[in-house]
């Protein structure tokens, strides 16, 4: 039966059935093969896949992010980043990376991130005569790091499907994100020296203070979210609701750039994204049930455990699998289906489940940047008005640096586990 389920799934994907429905289709085929009476399991598992309080955090963090970005937050963050890194060669490129990372601290969606920061920073880069392919490569790469910055959607989903504390994952993502961020900034700096890109002009101190004051309000959101979670004030889900209220208050009452008539747009944008994520989650729950019914995860786990000589070989194997999958499809289904199987295997090979999850999240982030279907790359090219083919040569060095960074994170678990240990999670 496992073969039938796999076959139906692959064929459905190839004939362009949406991933969420392809999973349900394969699940239905498996159930039908056993007995038509089992079909009633479909709605049951579909609902069970959605019925989780932590999942609420996904739509709400996305909503909080889009409220603030409608409220003109992206521009303020870019302005502020300009003060910190603008005077370094390649300043604008560094600004893009820094602001994309700060912005991810507020919005959970890497593609929304890339879009928000890109649409503000790209025109500026064009004015400074950055080669457009180079500029696009920079902000696509920056988007890929954002799967590690809390409150990233992928971290929430991994936490829910693999039963790992979301608070611990949020804490663990910070330092690896900084490591990867510094790595791509360093590459940008080297490129800037080579291409002789301009340094941003000096700004008088009074202006600097005003810009920092302006940017502080959106960044306070990061403090509220993380401080609230780690101070034990509220759960990550509750934090997401607080973030929405905060985002609304700042952009409606303080900045006054958000109009009430913007709200339906903001809410419906969130609804679209939520729909995509939720359908995959719900259908994957049907699909996983059918696999579990046949004890396939169990057999797969036993096989991996008996074949892999140690955790490092296992981890490199997992990296290859996720990179290959990430190159051809959206990372969500592999995460939802594979993480519940792989996390116990990783633990049995002596890995920390949080370290393992962060490595997969980092890998998935790289997949979002890599051609041919990386979503951040796609969004970046769309905004820049250039093609994936044209950007790819410029992007390859960034991908290599990110992969090297991934290897470093894999070999040194302490980078990932430092902050969680500090906060008493591991």
């Amino acid at each position, binding site marked *: 039966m496992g073969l039938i389920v796999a076959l139906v799934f692959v064929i*459905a994907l*190839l*004939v*362009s*059935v*949406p*991933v*969420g*429905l392809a999973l*349900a*289709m394969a699940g239905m085929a498996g159930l039908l093969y056993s007995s038509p009476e089992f*079909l*009633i399991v*479909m*709605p*049951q598992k*579909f*609902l069970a896949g*959605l*019925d989780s*309080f932590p999942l609420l955090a996904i*739509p*709400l963090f*996305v909503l909080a992010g889009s409220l603030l970005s409608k409220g003109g937050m992206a521009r303020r963050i870019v302005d502020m980043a300009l003060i910190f890194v603008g005077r370094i060669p390649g300043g604008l490129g560094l600004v893009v990376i820094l602001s994309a990372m700060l912005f991810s601290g507020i919005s959970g*969606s*890497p*593609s*929304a991130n890339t*879009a928000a920061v890109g649409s503000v920073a790209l025109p500026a880069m064009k004015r400074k005569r950055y080669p457009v392919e180079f500029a696009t490569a920079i902000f696509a790469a920056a988007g890929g790091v954002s799967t590690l910055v809390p409150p990233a959607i992928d971290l929430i989903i991994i936490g829910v499907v693999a039963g790992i504390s979301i608070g611990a994952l949020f804490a663990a993502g910070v330092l690896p994100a900084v490591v990867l961020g510094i790595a791509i900034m360093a590459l940008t700096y080297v490129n800037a020296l080579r291409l002789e890109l301009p340094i941003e002009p000096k700004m008088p101190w009074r202006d600097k203070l005003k810009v920092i004051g302006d940017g502080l309000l959106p960044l306070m959101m990061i403090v509220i979210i993380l401080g609230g979670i780690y101070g034990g*004030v*509220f759960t990550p889900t*509750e934090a997401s*609701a607080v973030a*929405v*209220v905060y985002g609304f208050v700042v952009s409606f009452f303080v900045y006054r750039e958000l109009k009430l*008539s*913007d709200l*339906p*747009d903001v*809410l*419906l*944008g*969130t*609804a*679209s*994204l*939520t*729909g*995509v994520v*939720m*359908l995959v989650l*719900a259908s994957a729950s049907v699909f996983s049930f059918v696999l579990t019914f046949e004890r396939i995860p169990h057999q797969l786990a036993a096989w991996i455990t008996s074949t892999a000589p140690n955790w490092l070989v296992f981890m490199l194997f997992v990296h290859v699998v996720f990179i290959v999958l990430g190159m*051809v*499809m*959206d990372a*969500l289904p592999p995460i939802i289906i594979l993480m519940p199987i792989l996390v116990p295997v990783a633990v049995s090979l002596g890995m920390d489940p949080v370290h393992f999850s962060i490595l997969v999240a980092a890998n998935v982030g790289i997949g979002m940047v890599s051609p*041919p*279907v990386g*979503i951040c790359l*796609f969004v970046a090219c769309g905004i820049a008005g250039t093609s994936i083919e044209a950007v790819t040569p410029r992007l390859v060095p960034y991908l290599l640096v990110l992969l090297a960074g991934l290897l470093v994170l894999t070999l040194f678990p302490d980078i990932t586990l430092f902050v969680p240990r500090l906060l008493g999670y591991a």
Partner: protein
Amino acid sequence: MRSSVTDLRSKPLELVLCMLLIAMVGVTFSQVLFRYVFQISLAWSEELARFLLLWLGSLCAAYAFKTRSHFALTFAVQRLPPGPRKQLSRLVTALIAVLLAVFAWQAFWFTLEVRTMVAPATGVSMSIPYSSAFVGSLLMLYYILRQAWRGDDDEPAEHTSTTGS
């Protein structure tokens, strides 16, 4: 502004989605508010929020079909010549319709089966949260068939900037 408050009045699904989202924020935020400001822990808020999410998830999944936001692999299909591609796309639509029809039928029976079960905190029948799968799958079926019927692009993706994960 493409969609505004007045537009929503003629779009019932969109209106419901907006209200569900706002309700979810309200319920979850009040859970925090009550705990710290009024020193009362609400017993029903978490359950209610989960039920709202079941409805939001199912209806948003249907809405994402309307806005064509769902992710599908197209590289294989794009290699086909236009004729066979159209045929294949009809076949795929038919297959999806069968899947959703079977799903909706099962979800209908499932809803009936759980109607005597009562949710522990809110005290409502489980049919109320669980019927979301039935309604959601019917709406998905509706949007897919409508798009197949009308051909293409009656409602292009409005929110491309926030799609994907």
